């Protein structure tokens, strides 16, 4: 029998208790988060969620020993520098909060570009000097203009998914371009026997908004087309009825308080159209008023 230190047992026991006492257990990756930023994020989570860093083996043990059905499968989602998050928030909300708390960070040599990194055209803060050569060396079109270094064209310096080189990282930092995002990556979250991976946890608010609008439009269409009177559809049904009545009155040339001006104007414009054609043949065929 090998001996397990007391503190190790305690730590597993603590983790286990946290697992049992929270509705939601998340598996996060803390890789690349500088210490001070991590402290800040922890503080921000306070009251909503608890972040626990521990050794992989301890976390695995705690998850395995938990009485919660299926929670053990969370250990398949350990990545980078794993940590557990405990909360009673809806896992989708947890994911959203973590995503929103991510901050910009300078490019690190050797990391992967999360998207196309573009150096935009325009003035820089640099006075003429060796940096001009450095810019040009990595393919950024730059020149000196009015005593300043100016980038003449937008330039994609690293394509999405490519590695960021040391030179590029240095230049991006000096240009104050911070293409990286750091923060707590929620890889997966467990709630009520189900493990939701990050792809499921991503909420598209734009889509929710457009779905609501689509649903409303369709409901409105149905109620207007089927002539079902609701507080939303009735104004449109009125407008439809009015348009139809106006069409009938105008097409049948029936003068009413609402059609007479339009019918008079129609006669007038028709007269102008005919007069236009006539005067094109012979200007004297129309009276002076119509000659132009």
């Amino acid at each position: 029998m090998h001996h397990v230190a007391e503190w190790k047992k305690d730590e597993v026991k603590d983790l286990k208790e946290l697992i049992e006492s929270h509705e939601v257990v998340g598996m996060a990756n803390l890789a690349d988060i500088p210490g001070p930023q991590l402290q800040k994020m922890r503080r921000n989570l306070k009251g909503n969620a608890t972040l626990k860093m521990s050794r992989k083996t301890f976390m695995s043990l705690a998850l395995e020993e938990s009485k919660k059905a299926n929670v053990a499968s969370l250990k398949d989602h350990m990545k980078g520098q794993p940590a557990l998050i405990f909360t009673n928030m809806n896992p989708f909300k947890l994911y959203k909060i973590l995503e929103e708390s991510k901050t910009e960070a300078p490019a690190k040599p050797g990391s992967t570009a999360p998207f196309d990194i573009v150096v935009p055209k325009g003035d820089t803060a640099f006075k003429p000097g060796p940096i001009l050569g450095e810019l040009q060396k990595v393919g950024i079109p730059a020149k000196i203009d009015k005593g300043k270094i100016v980038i003449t064209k937008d330039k994609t310096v690293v394509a999405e998914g490519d590695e960021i080189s040391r030179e590029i990282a240095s230049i991006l930092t000096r240009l104050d371009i911070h293409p990286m995002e750091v923060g707590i990556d929620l890889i997966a979250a467990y709630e009520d026997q189900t493990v939701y991976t990050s792809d499921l946890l991503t909420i598209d608010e734009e889509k929710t908004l457009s779905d609501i609008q689509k649903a409303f439009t369709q409901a409105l269409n149905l109620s207007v087309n089927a002539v079902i009177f609701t507080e939303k559809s009735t104004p449109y049904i009125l407008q439809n009825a009015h348009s139809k009545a106006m069409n009938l009155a105008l097409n049948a040339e029936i003068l009413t308080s609402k059609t007479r001006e339009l019918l008079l104007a129609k006669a007038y414009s028709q007269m102008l159209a005919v007069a236009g054609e006539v005067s094109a043949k012979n200007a004297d065929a129309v009276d002076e008023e119509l000659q132009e």
Partner: protein
Amino acid sequence: MEYIYAAMLLHTAGQEINEGNVKKVLEAAGAEADDARVKALIAALEDVDIEEAIEKTAVAAAAAPAAAA
């Protein structure tokens, strides 16, 4: 527009648009039913395909030509 609305109502209800019916509807609505205007309405609608006239967007035609002029 009372006369037009009365005509639309009868048309939608599948009833004939004649003097008697138009007057009956107008009176039920508490609107004055002027004989001459009722007759004028019937006369104006006589040669009109109501279904077509309702759907043809006349407003555009009416205002726009002036507009276009």
